[in-house]
């Protein structure tokens, strides 16, 4: 087992364990902070898949932006919720959660079956890519290539997403404004 594989297994174990903790814990604040760890370890997994730029973006946007936003919203949403959460009984396995557990378990069986029976490593285009050595090597610097592609091949999605971001900005500002006095 090489070092990279060892790191992969350690990181994926950490990601899955912290995600399970997020799903299972009673304490909401603790679950949000555990979600930090899930996202950071996922950024590590992206690095192992040779996507360093995506990993940096994950750290900046997810960990720095989204999670802080979630924490803010949680703190702003008042004391009643905190009390309500404290009083509700929240065991990981109970009768009320059986359908959810069943659904997730069946989905897991189906997805893992697909992942194993698909033989992703012997798909034609992946075989061709390995044969011509045109996969990303560990010492490649892909950020420049990403920038060039963003401005040429993927220009239309880029522009579309910029419009969508502006719409989301206006919508969020509109939703969170003060109500008019009527």
């Amino acid at each position, binding site marked *: 087992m090489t070092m*990279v*594989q060892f790191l*992969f297994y350690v990181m*994926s174990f950490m*990601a*899955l364990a912290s*995600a399970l903790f*997020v*799903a299972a814990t009673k304490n909401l604040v603790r*679950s*949000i902070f555990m*979600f930090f760890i*899930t*996202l950071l370890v996922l950024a590590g*997994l*992206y690095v*192992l*898949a040779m*996507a360093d730029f*995506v990993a940096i973006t*994950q750290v900046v*946007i*997810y960990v720095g932006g*989204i999670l802080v*936003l*979630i924490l803010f*919203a*949680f703190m*702003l*949403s008042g004391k009643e919720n905190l009390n*309500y*959460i404290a009083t*509700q009984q929240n065991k990981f396995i109970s009768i009320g959660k059986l359908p*959810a*557990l069943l*659904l*997730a*378990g069946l*989905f*897991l069986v189906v*997805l*893992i079956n*697909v*992942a194993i029976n698909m033989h*992703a*490593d012997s798909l034609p*285009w992946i075989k061709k890519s390995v044969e011509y050595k*045109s996969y*990303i090597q560990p010492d490649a610097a*892909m950020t420049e*290539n*990403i920038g060039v592609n963003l401005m040429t091949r*993927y220009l239309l*999605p880029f522009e579309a*997403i910029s419009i969508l*971001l502006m719409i*989301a900005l206006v919508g*969020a500002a509109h*939703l*969170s404004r003060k109500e008019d006095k009527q």
Partner: protein
Amino acid sequence: MISLTDFMVVSAVLFCIGLYMIVSKHNAIQILIGIELMLNAAILNLVAFGRYDRLANGGQMFALFAIVLAAATTAVALAIILNVCKRYKTIDPGKIDNLKD
């Protein structure tokens, strides 16, 4: 080199944890975290397959787009959750059952 099947198994498990959170939780913020977990599982697959696409970079590019979309979604969803909390005094989606007043 790490095989693609490993990446797919990890992302399948993450996806199912997110699905479980969405179906079982009684708190809108935890449901949002579940959605984020599912999105991250999808992004992990995009990135893992994108390694074999060096020239066009399709996987990494759409992973970036998905991250940005997730940010926009979260901002709007949190604004909605704050509004709902102000009006109903709860963020349990099961208890929000009337439209206006």
